[in-house]
Every structure is written in structure tokens, then in C-alpha cells.
């Protein structure tokens, strides 16, 4: 028997019982729409994460972080000087695949003022010129810190946009360059001003004059920073607090390197690891953290979110399938006589089987299509709730996957009713009133 005929018979049957069919579809509609919405939501989070990662620095960046040394080497742990400027110098000289090295120390307690009564407590950081590349800075006015500043321990500073605006409200960046800033009561010359870093979303909102909703801002740290030469930071600001440290032995807060060419990423990591093995005297108290690691970590949390959302949707699809099975069973007992007539004129058992199965799949397919429509509405609602960086993204594969799942639910839930219908005895069916 032609499947098209089964489909048209099924459609007629559905049309004859619209309300009943709609009720039985409800579970499938909910399942499909929530499945699509979940997938759109997690996809949005993924996209947002990816954009954030790109804006925070590319995959070339590798952080060298502290780690608890393994128990085998625990007794020698204090032989290691930890992460120091020596590491940075050694990597700069010997690691040929590394293009930039940025060691960093900071002073969170520093108070910067414009010399008048305008104090602003900001994170003051001592950095190398390479920081410009590693932190993906741009310059709005003036210049960044130079190797000469570093060598001389010059009292110069580059300030972030938020700092500049707080200390000198209304003054444009070019006029801020050359002004002096007091950091812990020591005068520094502002040599450069950083631009305002923001997400595209925020920039658009600002330009169109809309109020920017207060959200977590990934660029806040960059905008509120005050950068001074590493050496200046050590000699002028830090040494008082840590008199026993020397420039060479002082522990770094962060040490970030940039791989010159992503094609040589693994060799570059090996180089760094080998160099640090020497400078740390064989103590494995460090670890290399790539941005890929960060990404993987975020990925796995996205996966967890997707899994739990998918599970809920799957349960509702199963419930929907049970609903369809219920309706199909009711429909069969209503149509015993019809089945008997069809058998009498020559329908084979498998024709009846397929007819019921196709009908059940049609119901679930229809439910799936309605589910797509419902998911569009659901996603609109989610769009207004979800953070702007993580706008839900509807994808074709989500739709195909959800509707496929719905059809499978219809198929599975149609099997039993179909088997039951095809087992009906024609004589009994013809006598059935």
C-alpha cells in the first residue's frame, strides 16, 4: 500500500478529531519547544563566551600560574624561588616561539589623586611594555610605557578611561597627557590615556543614547587600571611594604606570555615548561594555563546546562509520546469496525499496522511543527531576560534535532497501538457495534 495513501488517511483522521489531537500533541509541543529553546540558550552562551574570549585575548596567550607541587617533590618545594622576574627574563631570552612576555605586580591599596582633593582608589599595576600587546590595549592619547621608562624606573603612568574620567571629569584625553597624578603621594606623569573598552552591545546602546543596564562588564578591570613601569612599581611603591625582596626574587602576581605563531603552540609550551623547570630547580610548582583550557572549562559548563535542559525536554517528549499512545489506543477502539471493513476488502495486517503508525507519527510531527512555532515565542521571551552577550541563537540543527526526536517519540508510542490494531480479528471487528 502506498505510504502517501496512509498519510492522507491519517491526516483525515486528525482533521476529524481536532481537539482530541491537539490535546494529545501538547506534550510534544512543550517538549520540542523547550528542547529548541534550551539549545538556542546554550548556543547563545557559547557564542557569548567565544566573543568574550576573543575580546579578552586570543588563543596565543598562556598564563603561568602557581600550583601545589606534587607530593613527591614537596620536601624540595622551598628550593623553588617561585615565579619571579628571572622566569620572565629566561623565557624572553631562550623561548624562541614566545613573542611577548608580560610579568606583572600590583598594588591594590594605592590611592591615586589628581594632586587636589580628588582621590580615587584603583588597582595600580607594574607592567612591562609587552603588557600593551598581551592585554590587547590601544591608546587614546599619548603613548604606552617604553623600555626606557622601565630601565630608568621613570615615574610615568598610563591611565584607564574610567580613571581619567573620574580624576579629570570633562577633560579630553589629549589634555590629560602631561598632567600629574599622585600615587601614594608620589607624583607620576600621565604619559598615556587608554580608550574606553566596551562590548559592541554597550557601544551601540551608548551611541543611541539608551541607558546601559548595569551588568557584569568584562572590561571593567581594563578601564579602571593605572599602569606604571614594573621597576618603578617595585622601587617606589612596593619596596617599602616588602623590604626583604629584591627586584630579582620578588614573586610575580601574574606572568603571561604570548605564543608568536599558533602553529608552534605545543613546542612553545614545551619550551616554557623546560625553562621554568630550570629556574624553579625542578620543583613543579607552576602550571601553564592556555585560553583553550579556559574555553574548555566554560564549554563543559555549557554542556552541563545543555544536558540538564535536554533531559527535561526529553522527559516531556516521553510524556508527550505516552499522550499520543493513549489517543491512538482510544482511536483504535473507536475504529474497530473500520479496521474490520478494511481487512475484509483486502487490507493486510501490515497495512493496518503502518496506517496506525503513520498516523501516530503525523500527530507527533504536527506537534513538532507547532513546537517550533512555540519555541520562536519562547526564545523571544528568553531574549528579553538573557544577558545581552548571551542572546539565544536559534539554529537549524536544533530544529531538526528536536523535530526528529518528536517523530521518534511518535514512532515509539505508535508501535503498541499499531500492533494491537493489526492483530484485530476481522470477523469480530465486523460484528463490533
Amino acid at each position: 500500500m502506498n505510504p502517501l495513501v496512509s498519510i492522507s488517511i491519517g491526516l483525515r483522521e486528525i482533521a476529524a478529531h481536532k481537539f482530541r489531537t491537539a490535546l494529545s500533541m501538547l506534550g510534544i509541543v512543550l517538549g520540542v519547544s523547550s528542547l529548541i529553546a534550551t539549545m538556542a540558550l546554550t548556543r547563545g552562551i557559547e557564542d557569548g563566551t567565544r566573543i568574550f574570549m576573543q575580546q579578552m585575548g586570543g588563543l596565543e596567550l598562556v598564563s603561568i600560574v602557581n600550583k601545589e607541587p606534587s607530593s613527591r617533590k614537596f620536601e624540595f618545594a622551598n628550593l623553588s624561588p617561585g615565579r619571579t622576574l628571572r622566569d620572565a627574563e629566561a623565557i624572553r631570552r631562550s623561548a624562541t616561539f614566545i613573542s611577548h612576555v608580560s610579568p606583572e605586580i600590583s598594588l591594590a591599596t594605592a590611592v591615586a589623586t589628581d594632586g587636589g582633593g580628588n582621590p580615587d582608589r584603583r588597582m595600580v599595576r607594574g607592567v612591562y611594555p609587552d603588557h600593551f600587546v598581551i592585554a590587547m590595549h590601544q591608546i587614546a592619547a599619548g603613548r604606552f610605557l617604553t623600555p626606557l621608562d622601565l630601565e630608568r624606573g621613570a615615574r610615568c603612568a598610563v591611565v584607564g578611561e574610567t580613571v581619567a574620567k573620574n580624576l579629570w571629569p570633562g577633560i579630553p584625553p589629549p589634555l590629560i597627557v602631561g598632567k600629574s597624578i599622585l600615587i601614594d603621594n608620589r607624583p607620576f606623569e600621565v604619559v598615556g590615556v587608554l580608550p574606553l573598552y566596551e562590548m559592541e552591545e554597550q557601544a551601540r546602546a551608548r551611541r543611541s543614547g539608551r541607558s546601559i543596564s548595569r551588568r557584569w562588564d568584562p572590561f571593567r578591570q581594563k578601564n579602571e587600571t593605572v599602569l606604571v613601569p614594573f621597576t618603578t612599581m617595585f622601587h617606589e611603591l612596593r619596596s617599602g611594604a616588602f623590604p626583604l625582596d629584591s627586584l630579582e626574587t620578588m614573586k610575580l602576581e601574574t606572568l603571561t606570555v604570548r605564543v608568536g605563531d599558533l602553529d608552534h603552540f605545543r613546542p612553545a609550551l614545551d619550551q616554557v615548561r623546560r625553562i621554568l623547570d630550570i629556574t624553579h630547580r625542578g620543583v613543579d610548582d607552576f602550571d601553564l594555563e592556555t585560553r583553550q583550557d579556559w574555553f574548555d572549562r566554560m564549554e563543559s559548563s555549557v554542556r552541563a546546562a545543555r544536558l540538564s535542559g535536554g533531559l527535561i525536554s526529553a522527559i516531556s517528549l516521553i510524556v508527550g509520546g505516552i499522550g499520543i499512545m493513549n489517543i491512538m489506543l482510544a482511536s483504535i477502539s473507536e475504529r474497530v469496525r473500520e479496521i474490520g471493513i478494511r481487512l475484509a476488502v483486502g487490507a493486510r495486517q501490515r497495512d493496518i499496522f503502518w496506517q496506525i503508525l503513520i498516523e501516530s507519527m503525523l500527530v507527533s510531527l504536527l506537534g513538532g511543527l507547532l513546537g517550533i512555532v512555540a519555541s520562536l515565542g519562547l526564545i523571544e521571551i528568553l531574549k528579553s531576560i538573557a544577558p545581552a552577550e548571551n542572546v539565544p541563537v536559534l539554529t537549524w540543527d536544533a530544529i531538526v534535532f528536536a523535530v526528529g526526536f518528536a517523530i521518534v517519540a511518535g514512532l515509539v508510542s505508535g508501535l503498541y497501538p499499531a500492533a494491537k490494531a493489526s492483530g484485530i480479528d476481522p470477523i469480530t471487528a465486523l460484528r463490533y457495534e
Partner: protein
Amino acid sequence: MSLIHLEGLSKVYRVGDQEIRALDEVNLRIEEGEFIAIIGSSGSGKSTLMHLLGCLDTPTAGRMEICGNDLAKPSNDQLACVRNREIGFVFQAFNLLPKLDVVSNIALPLIYAGVPSRERLARARQAASDVGLGDRLANRPPQLSGGQCQRVAIARALVNNPRTLFADEPTGNLDSATGRMILEMFDALHASGKTVVLVTHDPAIAARSRRVIEICDGRITREYAP
């Protein structure tokens, strides 16, 4: 060779511990082109015989050959195939699908014969006009009279051009005038060469046939020409 050949055919139903022999070693030959009436009272076994002949049921024991198909131990598909191609059914209660119009009802057997839809429609229309319902194609059974319904059923039984027509009390739900008209159609079909098997409890109707088979308690008790 006979069109239908039954030898020692039995059908036994089991109800609890009780064994009911609905048919008991029936032997019967029906040649092509015969007009036969099977007559018997209620519970005589004539319906069981009809169901076996119509391939709606399988025998418990004995040989059964219909149109050259050995149906002693038939598969369900084999039975469906014979019902579809070799047999046309006319029932007392018409057994039309109330949701379908006249054409679709008549075309029903052709769906299961795998006939393409255009040809299906053409043949169903032809069959409808053969029984005089060419102008009621789009009506549905509830909108038709009993006689018209039975004519639709006859058209449906004939649409796949079977050799044998089974009619189970075809006039039972009709008034006598309409019933006579339906019986005249069977006469005409017999005249055109179809084998007609009529099941009835009414001797007057059986008298229209050429050969009457009387059944009582599951056995053929008498055979005569009216």
C-alpha cells in the same frame, strides 16, 4: 477444476471447556459461474461457512482450495490477497465507511491492491455508474438510502473484478421492494458470468438461485435445485 473445493472442512471453537463444532466435515464443490444459496437457521453454521469461504477465518481441519489457492494452512497475507483479488463481499449491514464519500468507499479495495490513485478513481466511478449511482459520487453513506448503500457495497465488491461474490443476508436491512431490486442485480451479475454465493435464512430468496445448500448443526443436510 472447481473454483471452490472443500473437503472434510471443520471449524471448532473452544469456549472454556466446551468444544463447539460450528462446521463438521463439510464437503463442497462450487464451479465457476454458479449461483448458490446457502440456507440455514440461526446458529446452523452457515455464517461460519461463509467466513471460511470468504477467507475471513481459517479452518481447524480439512482441505480448502479457493481459486487455485490452497488455504488449508494459510498465512494472513495470503488470505488478505485472496479477499482482495478473488472475492467481493456484500454484507447485511452494508459495512461502508461513513466518513468517506461514495467514490472513496468503492475505491477502498483498490488501495490495498496497489492501484495508482488516478486509475483508482476512474475505476471507482465506472463501478458506481454500473450500479446506477453515477450521480451520487460525492455523497457519504449517511446521506444515502439503504438500497443506495447496498448498491455502493456491491460496486465496492465488484471494483477489483473478482470472480466470486459473497452476499451475507444482503436484503436483511432493506424493505421488500428494494430487496427485490438488489436480488435482481445478483441475477444480472450471475448472468454476466460471476459466481454468486448467497447466504440467507429465507427460502424465498434462496429460490432465486440455481442450487440450494441447506446447513444444519454444522453439516450439509440437503442439496437441491429450486
